[in-house]
């Protein structure tokens, strides 16, 4: 009886641990802290994206942070990516996996434009 009990505990423990590990793994991936690529920072301030054009390697994550005193958004012209509304100090990240040119703009102030070139 005791043997069976011990076995149950062990099995249960292994199951628990594997669940835990799986969650930890997925949490890590969605936070973008993947060891594959780096993060490139773009600042949003004074109604402009800075730098307005960036060139990155495929697999890089771009992080836009709004330092302006007005909300902005980041929207790809071809709708491949789109942030929610970013108030001051809020950020949006997107990982570019495919090479290409990705023009984007602020949907609230469409004169604000930028470009990500992925090689």
């Amino acid at each position, binding site marked *: 009886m005791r043997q069976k009990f011990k076995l149950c505990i062990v099995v249960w423990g292994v199951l628990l641990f594997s669940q835990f590990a799986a969650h930890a793994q997925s949490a890590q991936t969605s936070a973008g802290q993947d060891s594959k690529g780096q993060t490139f920072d773009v600042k949003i301030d004074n*109604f402009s994206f800075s730098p307005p054009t960036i060139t990155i390697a495929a697999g890089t994550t771009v992080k836009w942070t709004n330092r302006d*005193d*007005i*909300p902005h958004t980041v929207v790809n012209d071809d709708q491949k990516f789109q942030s929610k*509304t970013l108030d001051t100090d809020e950020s949006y990240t997107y990982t570019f996996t495919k090479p290409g040119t990705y*023009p984007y703009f602020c949907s609230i102030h*469409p004169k604000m434009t930028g470009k990500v070139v992925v090689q």
Partner: protein
Amino acid sequence: MAESDRRTLALAGAKDVIEYDHNHDGIDRRGFLKCMAWAGAGAYCVIQGGVMKSFALGGLGGKDEQELKGELSFVQISDSHMGFSKPANPDVVATLQAAIDKINALPATPEFLLHTGDISHLSKANEFDMVDQLLKSAKVKDAFFVPGEHDVLNDDGKQYRERYGKGTQGNGWYSFDKNGVHFIGLVNVMNLKAGGLGSLGNEQLEWMEDDVKHLSKSTPIIVFAHIPLWSVYPEWGWGTEDSAQALGYLKKFGSVTVLNGHIHQTMQKVEGNVTFHTAMSTAFPQPKPGAAPSPGPMKVPDNELRTVLGITDVNFVQGKHALAVTDQTLA
């Protein structure tokens, strides 16, 4: 000028009467522009039968109020940005309340209020709720709205239309009539294209063309939309891509007034039969075109803030071309 008019002017202590009709169409353009320049200092301009009359706001007597009230009066406010809280104005609730107090202190109770958009700052429910709550204390009989780009965030304007879009079409456009004046509310803050300006879109333009088709050319028209319908400063997005088409449908009308917001300062232009006017914000000012690197909120000394925020009082008097547009600051 009729003898009764002279008497009225004398009673009201009018400063000046201007009569220029070079185009022989009853529009006193030079006088109107001169009067508009006074408007910033709190003058009250009324055109009656093609003749411009102006009165200092302080010198309005009791029995002249009917004369001055005209046949339709309403008030425009704009850009309340409820939810904004930065150095340019940490208390937009207080300044909106001050604007409402100004409305309630007008010599003649306006029949309704027109809000030309950016009601909220981040399209949040509690921001809209707060504005609705504050407006309850305004002594107006009705309120009409058009959205600003800050009112349609994250949901393509769904919440805006649920709250303010009753009886509207498409993204929230509509028209209505008051005392023989035809009002058209347009939405030019949706589906904006990269690098572009405000946009009305084909569906709305087709609706508008149809809406005004059967109106007689003597019907006074008032168009209101958030982003200016003329090219104030394209570099900052202060204009609308396809407004020329919309204005084309209004060519036949003798009196067209366009009321906008968005730029947080007053600006006016008269072009043919069309008078364009933008309102101050009740939340924060923005720089004059090109006077700053970007069109963001402009910080002024605290004791000056209320002198750059305000409301617009509009009075219409039946006649050939009759509209009086007066801006009042909060302090």
